[in-house]
């Protein structure tokens, strides 16, 4: 790297002091010689105290003035730094320090400071995004409810119209309640760094039980289930794992057309437990696969009202906390497979 102009802070200090002393000495020397020449100081004077005292005083003054001038150069970046920190404290994350400082340490400090500010500002935008997202997700169903309730108040409605408005309202309330409970679950998981309550349970049976909970949904779409579940005794948090399966299976059902097929495989090797959930539904494009685990991300805009884009975020949190891995393989219009593995 090109670092010709970067000097060490210690060396700068030593050099500065050296030059201050050198200049002061030379200057005092010149003054002394001048004074002798002008006869203020005779070398044969009886008492040497007065001229010595005079020279001492002079050299102190000169040294101080030099220090003042050069100190300004060293201290300027620190003063700038202090000002910048003050601004950050007040919430201004746009401030940046110059990064081509002569002194190495000062330059490092400027760089780190800029990194810190960038980091802080990204957290700030994340937080803002989160609030925008949350309030948007809340407002959509709320305004739907509001609108249809208003419509319901008019008197000339057929029974079918009424029923369809009511269905829409019920769908929106369900979405709202799902939203609040998912936000709660995610924020709870974000504040913990490991899974606390663990016990042994049968994973294959848990998958069957999650399918039973979703029976209405797959029955309605006449989805064919292909299950290959070998007996697996798993050590982990039963309730959280249940949420993983419910969310993945729920997605598989939601994004698969009528008469589709969902395959679930679960098996255990000497090293790992592996579960895969495949559907032959609409699929996810490679571009979108990169985002599906993000909060509030929904790739299929036509189905926005059927969820909040929090399911996979929750799943990923749980799998990560449990020390597992989740992977997605998908082709648009062909289908999607989610695979989770836990080492044992």
């Amino acid at each position, binding site marked *: 790297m090109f670092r010709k102009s970067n000097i060490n802070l210690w060396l700068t200090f030593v050099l500065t002091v050296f030059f201050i002393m050198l200049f002061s000495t030379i200057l005092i020397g010149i003054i002394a010689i001048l004074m002798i020449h002008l006869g203020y100081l005779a070398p044969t004077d009886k008492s040497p105290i007065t001229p010595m005292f005079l020279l001492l005083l002079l050299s102190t003054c000169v040294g101080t003035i030099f220090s003042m001038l050069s100190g300004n150069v060293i201290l300027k970046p620190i003063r700038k730094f202090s000002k910048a920190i003050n601004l950050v404290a007040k919430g201004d994350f746009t401030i940046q320090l110059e990064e081509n400082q002569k002194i190495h340490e000062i330059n490092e400090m400027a760089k780190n400071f800029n990194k810190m500010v960038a980091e802080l500002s990204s957290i700030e935008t994340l937080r803002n995004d989160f609030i925008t997202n949350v309030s948007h997700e809340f407002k959509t169903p709320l305004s739907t409810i509001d609108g249809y309730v208003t419509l319901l108040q008019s008197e000339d409605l057929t029974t079918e119209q009424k029923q369809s408005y009511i269905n829409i309202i019920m769908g929106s309330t369900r979405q709202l*309640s799902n939203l609040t*409970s998912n936000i709660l679950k995610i924020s709870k998981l974000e504040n913990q760094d490991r899974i606390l309550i663990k016990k042994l349970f049968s994973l294959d*049976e848990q998958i*069957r*039980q999650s399918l*039973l909970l979703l*029976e209405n949904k797959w029955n309605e779409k006449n989805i064919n*289930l*292909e299950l290959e579940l070998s007996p697996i005794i798993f050590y982990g948090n039963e*309730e959280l794992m249940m949420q993983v399966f419910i969310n993945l299976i729920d997605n598989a059902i939601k994004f698969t057309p009528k008469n589709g097929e969902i395959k679930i495989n679960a098996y255990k090797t000497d090293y790992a437990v592996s579960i895969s959930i495949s559907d032959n539904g609409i699929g996810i494009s490679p571009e979108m696969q990169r985002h599906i685990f993000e909060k509030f991300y929904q790739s299929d805009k036509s189905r926005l009202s059927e969820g909040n884009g929090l399911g996979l975020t929750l799943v990923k949190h749980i799998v990560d906390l449990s020390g597992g891995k989740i992977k997605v393989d998908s082709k648009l219009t062909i289908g999607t497979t989610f695979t989770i593995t836990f080492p044992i």
Partner: protein
Amino acid sequence: MFTILVVEDDDNLRKLFCTVLNKNGYQTIDAKDGYEALDCMDKNYVDLLISDVMMPNMDGYELTRELRAAHYEIPILLITVKESFQDKQKGFLSGTDDYMVKPIDVNEMVLRVEALLRRAQIITERKLTIGSTILEYDTLTVFQNKLPILLPQKEFYLLYKLASYPNKIFTRQSIMDEIWGMDSESDERTVDVHVNRLRDRFKENQDFDIITVRGLGYKVVKKNV
């Protein structure tokens, strides 16, 4: 007519529950908290209790515990905003029969109430009727058009369990756990063997079928109703 006691501190919700239950043909009494509920229980005959968990004075868990301690055996359905496993466990430990998480779907509430009442009836009568088939728990006997068939114990319990909840799928594991016990040595194929025997016995039955749901388990469905 069944009488249901609704305990809920929120006025709007209490009114909603009562209205829905009345519409579905149940008589309702309402109470604002646990103490009021206990009072109502003393003065009225109640078939089923629906209670919120979080209430002032005496909460739902405590109310359930009190009632069970006083030997009230009526079905209890708790309704709560909490949905963690520990809370559910706490609910069941205190003696509740079923548990719903707010915001609840009132239609589902009605379905659960029906199921709870039917089960309570099955338990008190120890008898189950599907069309013209009657299962008599104490004698392990099935009557088909008045003709008695005595079943081996496990087979009878298996049929009784499935028939208590028509259309509900039971996994082999859950059947094993309940009928053979958690730590039984037999494996899940035992369930298949018993189901096959039952099917054989009731080939001719006009009231129900035992259906295999591939990969998941079994369910009883009522025929032509």
